């Protein structure tokens, strides 16, 4: 598989999910307890996904695959 699309996808995932996480964090404060719990659970899963994508990205970069390529 060509490395560039893979890197782009990873980068997009990080960007997109981070944006979602930020928007969710802004909403969290005003949420009733029940909703806040559900939201926090989804945010935790999102954060794990971001971490997973970041680890893959790091691995790709350490192999010398350049994002500028």
């Amino acid at each position, binding site marked *: 598989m060509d490395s560039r*699309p893979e890197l*782009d*996808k990873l980068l*997009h995932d990080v*960007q*997109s*999910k*981070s*944006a*979602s*996480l*930020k*928007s*969710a964090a*802004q*909403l969290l404060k005003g*949420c009733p307890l029940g909703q806040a719990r*559900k*939201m926090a659970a*989804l*945010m935790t*899963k*999102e954060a794990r996904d971001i971490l997973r994508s970041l680890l893959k990205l790091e691995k790709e970069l350490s192999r010398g695959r350049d994002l500028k390529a």
Partner: protein
Amino acid sequence: MDKLIILVVEDDKLTQKVMAQHLGGHCVEFAGDLDTAMRKLAAGHYDICFIDLRLGGDDECSGLQVIPRAVAKGVYAVVMSGCDSEGMVDQAYELGCSDFYAKGNEAANIGAVIAKYHQNRAGCNAGHIFAHRFITEDQATRASIVEALKYASSDLPILILGPSGTGKTSLGKIIHEHSRREGDFVAINCSAYTEELLEAELFGHRKGAFTGASASRKGKLLQAHQGTLFLDEIGAMSLNMQTKLLKAIEERSFHPVGSDKPECSDFRIISATLENLQRLIAQGRLRFDFFQRIHGLTVNLKPLAQRKCDIFPLINFFTQGGKRLSFSAEARACLLDHSWPGNMRELKKLVSLLASGHEGRVTKEQLFRHLTQALGEPPAASGAFVGESQYRYALDQGLDQAVDRFTRGIIMRNLSENHGKKTKTLAALKISTRLLYSTLRKHPAPEEEEAPDGLPA
């Protein structure tokens, strides 16, 4: 607030949750993949569709396929995606999406999308307004109003320009009604007050603030809280008052007359005037910074004489539910020929006079009698004696020159109607020979070489 039906095409569960929170109060459905989105769009009816471009699967931008489907169904398509490269933005707009937002600022962006959707819908529904509220068939006037309605729900100040009687206040009210603001439409005519009284009217006053202030009174700014403040004849406001109002607009707070306690008010400004504001700025009668504050979108309302296609629709409108009128061919021609210096207000008054009469069929003679009567009334009472062009000329050149030109115009016309017979003109206009000859000396008439008629040269 209208409940909208909204489809959110988004595969990320957390984003779905965020969107659901921001769109609370509307009916929201979700599609987590391309197939579900296409199926829902084919079967359902939606007002707005939010589209994420990456929906998983092999195609990395499968969301793009949703845009044309949504647009074909008349849905307001908005892309909200983490993929916001220039190429992707261009592609999305080419496919017909109405808006493109990068993910991450949903709190502000979703509100903006809903507001814009309502603005566009208000513009599309303008047909009802033209049939029932602001009667016009003039395409340029319609286009100006549709444009203004698109900004109705924003906070943008609107400036309505047009001669007296063209419907400036009516339009201000219509814009307010489409603004979704919860407060009232509060109108004030700035030319109707002295500076001190205008300040008290706008800002309110405390009991005993000035002679006659027997009780505290809420001002127009406070009355317009969460609503619209309509400032009519804005050009008549003094420089001092402009400074005070500018401060109140910028700070959203002000002090009522005689009070140390500031009051806060959130209002939108719509202003109206028949004057040329650029000229007032040049003359030092209008502060430029104040002008900048009240001038967002400008709407020009043409005088009735420049949109004669509206005369008969307006007559129909004014007589709806009451006595209908029929005009002879000559009367119709006379209506179209009249210069309507009082604009719609003058037409409404004429229709009222005609409808109150005994005859439903209106002849040229009847019409002429009423129009002459209207012009024969004292100017202050009719408001129609001085036409827009004369008024503007007087503003430009000064009253003396305007009166001089007016006098000359009447004398020359009468001389022409009397085939140059000065005696007839002297009698018809009840003027002195001195006035006649001084006018002719200053402005020689080309046809004044007439047979001697015994008048002194």
